């Protein structure tokens, strides 16, 4: 009621008779339902509601113009929706996001005190709650939970504007991933010991030293070797040159103290937050009470490289296995940019596979350098989705070894021991690279999964001849093997054997076909989605089990039946089609449906990764757009068609 403050004598009567404290209910009710405002206590909420300004923007209104609009208000969408996009110098538009009811925009430019960093345009008639930037900043300062929410949820944008200058040196990249910021620890990105200078030394010597080392800061230590402060480029500029100080001035008079430190286990994002909130560019890293290095805003920015080629080269350049760990975590960033550029799921999974293969290649090469040349020929084989070149994020390990095991006992013993240690260590490193252990222990570290070629041939024959259904089910992923590293001829030899044998094993193939028919497409009679009824994933649809698996199974069975040596699902389908084992129509439908399901899963998982949850395969149909739902239903319809095709081929009856 600020407008009425001069209205002294009447205010009392007014308040006495007001039904509510003049906090507009429509604003209050909305804020109470909206993250993160629902975290606020009632009084804070009421204060905020009273500062609310309600505005209306007809459809297609450009609310913020990138680099032009002075952002004076935080905008919370009450009704309607906006699209957020970037326009580069060439006028090329990159769509960033759609925001709808309960979502916001304009927070970042306010925090950064810059002009709008992106274009915001309404896609429908839109009502927004506006809060003046002062009110918004006040809120951030008084409510840490709210602050945290905003900073975390917009880290990507945070990085973009805060480090705009740095971005300009990396023009080629259009996306910055926020993901890595949340996983990489500051301790891990710092290279080398901290550079120091004595407190009693001169500013000139400090400047000379910084120039020689090409660095922007030095830690300052006292006579006892204790770190007491830091001196940076900026100090040289602002405190020495600009003030006209003598170059012989002692460092201790101009250094910043105490040094701002961060624990080496803190993630880069927290370091970034700390630097931004204190408006500094350097942080000393503390490990067990000792300062072990300095991290700069630039170091963190460099983490953001997302070009696949860049990553590929980086992997190749690594000299230490441990350095591969961090690079491997960058794979999702590459995927993100590929998705944004419109790549199809098949290309994306192939790209992930290439990068994973590259990591594996580098890892095993370094391992061999470390352990010495292997005593015998070997081939590291990959199975499951790795074998099919269909990896997404966080694919479990599925691997094994084909060895040439010498006859002579001493050499035989030596070989077996070498590969036992080799496998154990490689599996461990792969876990650190972000490939979790296989829950079914299908890994080269399993003693049963290191065999010579003859042993493997026997194993496959056993599976195919064995009529035990459980055995058949468990063995399917082995049939998708391919060479990962080492002597590929060993794997080729095994495949050749399989291609010759499998088509004759009718009982085995019929078993496989029956399993494929066991999966019912998740469509009820009325063509609604059938979702999980209970448990953690209630009301969700398992995209992998009920969507992708039937396609993979179908392609595998058909490939085995027709002696096709390809392992990739789309590759198998193509060869099957070329050899006229499946019709043009079925081929087209299957490929389209499978690609759509893969794409959906990838985007879904990427989204989860960016939200910081481990990716899974469950989606909620309610989260999909109408078009996506429709396409998804059509994709599930195709499963029925491949099943009836299997029925015919294997003379199975409807189960």
């Amino acid at each position, binding site marked *: 009621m600020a407008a009425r403050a001069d209205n002294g004598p*009447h205010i009392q009567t*007014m308040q006495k008779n007001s*039904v509510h404290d003049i906090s*507009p209910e429509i604003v209050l009710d909305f804020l109470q339902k909206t993250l993160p405002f629902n975290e606020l206590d009632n009084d804070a909420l009421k204060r905020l509601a009273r500062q609310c300004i*309600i*505005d*209306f923007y007809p459809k297609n209104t450009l609310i913020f113009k990138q680099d032009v609009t002075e952002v004076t208000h935080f905008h919370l969408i*009450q009704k309607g929706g906006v699209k957020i996009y970037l326009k580069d110098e060439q006028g090329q538009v990159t769509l960033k996001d759609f925001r709808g009811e309960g979502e916001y925009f304009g927070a970042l430019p306010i925090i950064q005190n810059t002009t709008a960093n992106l274009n915001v345009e309404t896609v429908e008639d839109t009502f927004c709650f506006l809060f003046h930037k002062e009110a918004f900043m006040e809120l951030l300062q008084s409510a840490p939970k709210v602050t945290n929410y905003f900073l975390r949820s917009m880290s990507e944008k945070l990085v973009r504007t805060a480090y705009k200058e740095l971005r300009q040196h990396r023009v080629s990249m259009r996306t910055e991933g926020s993901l890595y910021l949340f996983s990489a620890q500051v301790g891990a990105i710092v290279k080398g010991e901290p550079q120091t200078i004595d407190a009693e030394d001169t500013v000139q010597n400090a400047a000379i030293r910084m120039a020689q080392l090409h660095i922007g800061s030095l830690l300052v230590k006292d006579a006892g070797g204790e770190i007491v402060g830091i001196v940076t480029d900026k100090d040289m500029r602002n405190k020495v040159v600009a003030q006209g100080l003598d170059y012989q001035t002692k460092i201790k008079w101009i250094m910043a103290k105490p040094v701002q430190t961060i624990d080496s286990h803190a993630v880069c994002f927290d370091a970034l937050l700390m630097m931004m909130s204190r408006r500094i560019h350097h942080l000393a890293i503390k490990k067990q009470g000792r300062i072990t290095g300095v991290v700069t805003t630039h170091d963190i920015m460099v983490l953001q490289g997302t070009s696949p080629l860049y990553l590929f080269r980086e992997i190749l350049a690594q000299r230490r296995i441990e350095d591969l760990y961090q690079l491997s975590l960058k794979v999702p960033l590459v995927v993100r940019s590929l998705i944004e550029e419109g790549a199809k799921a098949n290309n994306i999974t192939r790209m992930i596979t290439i990068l994973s293969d590259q990591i594996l290649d580098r890892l095993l090469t370094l391992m061999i350098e470390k352990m010495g040349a292997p005593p015998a020929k070997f081939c590291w084989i990959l199975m499951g989705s790795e074998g099919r070149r269909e990896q997404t994020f966080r694919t479990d390990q599925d691997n094994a070894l084909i060895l040439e095991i010498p006859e002579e006992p001493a050499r035989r013993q030596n070989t077996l021991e070498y590969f036992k240690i080799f496998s154990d260590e490689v599996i461990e490193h792969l876990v650190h690279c972000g490939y979790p252990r296989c829950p079914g222990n299908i890994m080269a570290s399993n003693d049963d999964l290191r065999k010579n070629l003859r042993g493997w041939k026997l194993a496959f024959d056993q599976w195919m001849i064995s009529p035990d259904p459980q055995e058949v089910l468990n063995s399917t992923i082995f049939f998708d093997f391919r060479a990962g590293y080492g002597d590929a001829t060993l794997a080729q030899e095994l495949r050749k054997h399989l291609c010759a044998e499998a088509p004759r094993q009718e009982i085995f193939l019929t078993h496989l076909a029956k399993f494929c028919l066991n999966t019912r497409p998740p469509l009820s009679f009325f063509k609604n989605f059938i979702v999980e009824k209970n448990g953690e994933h209630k009301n969700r649809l398992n995209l992998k089990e009920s969507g992708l698996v039937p396609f993979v199974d179908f392609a595998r069975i058909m490939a085995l039946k027709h002696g096709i040596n390809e392992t990739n699902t789309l590759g198998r389908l193509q060869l099957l089609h070329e050899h006229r084992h499946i019709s043009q129509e079925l081929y087209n439908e299957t490929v389209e449906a499978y690609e759509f399901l893969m794409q959906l899963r990838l985007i879904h998982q990427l989204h989860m990764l960016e939200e910081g949850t481990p990716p899974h395969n469950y989606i909620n149909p309610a989260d999909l757009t109408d078009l996506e739902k429709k396409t998804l239903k059509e994709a599930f319809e195709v499963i029925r068609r491949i099943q009836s095709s299997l029925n015919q081929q294997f003379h199975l009856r409807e189960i």
Partner: protein
Amino acid sequence: MEFRRFWPFAARNKTEEHPAFQRNHSWFASIDQGQPLESYNFVVFDTELTGLGRKDEIVSIGAVHVRDLKILAGETFHSFVRPHMITNATDSTLLHRITPEQLEHAPALKEVLPEFIEFCGPSLLVGHYISLDMGHINKATRKIFGTTIKNPCLDTMRLAQIYTETCWKQYQDQPNLQVSFNLADLSNDYGLPAFTQHDALQDSLQTAYLFIYLVKKFMSQGVVTLKDLFNAGQRWRKII
């Protein structure tokens, strides 16, 4: 002035006009209609009455400021009013969820009206079917203070009729004569945020939503000044 014949008691107040009204009259002695719409200040208000008849009385007034065509959700006004006929008040209980106690302890119109006028200041007034509200307010001010308030008024119901008509013209449809111009129905038809509570303040806010929605829609059709908006109304009346 003519009204004195009908309200002989009012003559006592006439000699010294209430300062709120003096200011009010000086503000609106002349008004420039040629300015862009966003440069005017508006107060959107709503009154609740004991009933719909001419003899019914105001039991509450709610209002909200609109500046730069944005609703200032914190700059609101709300007051109950003690009616002269308390029997009337009980009738309205069901309609407005106002308890008789709330009205018994409420100030009289004599106190509330100057405050409301102060709250409005030099703003233009906006309401849904505003002639009804203004009729009651000016009937009361005339009776109590011997004068009326002179704020120019805009009617969102009329604006909605004009808007609906221009939409028909665009789509070359036959006018749908069944369309309802009731506040809640219009809000629903236009897809405005839904209001669950209803009192004079909430209704004034809902009217404010409707107002900025319509004005901005008109602006995207080429309306710039206040005069343009008045003219749009004139044209429409001719067509009817």
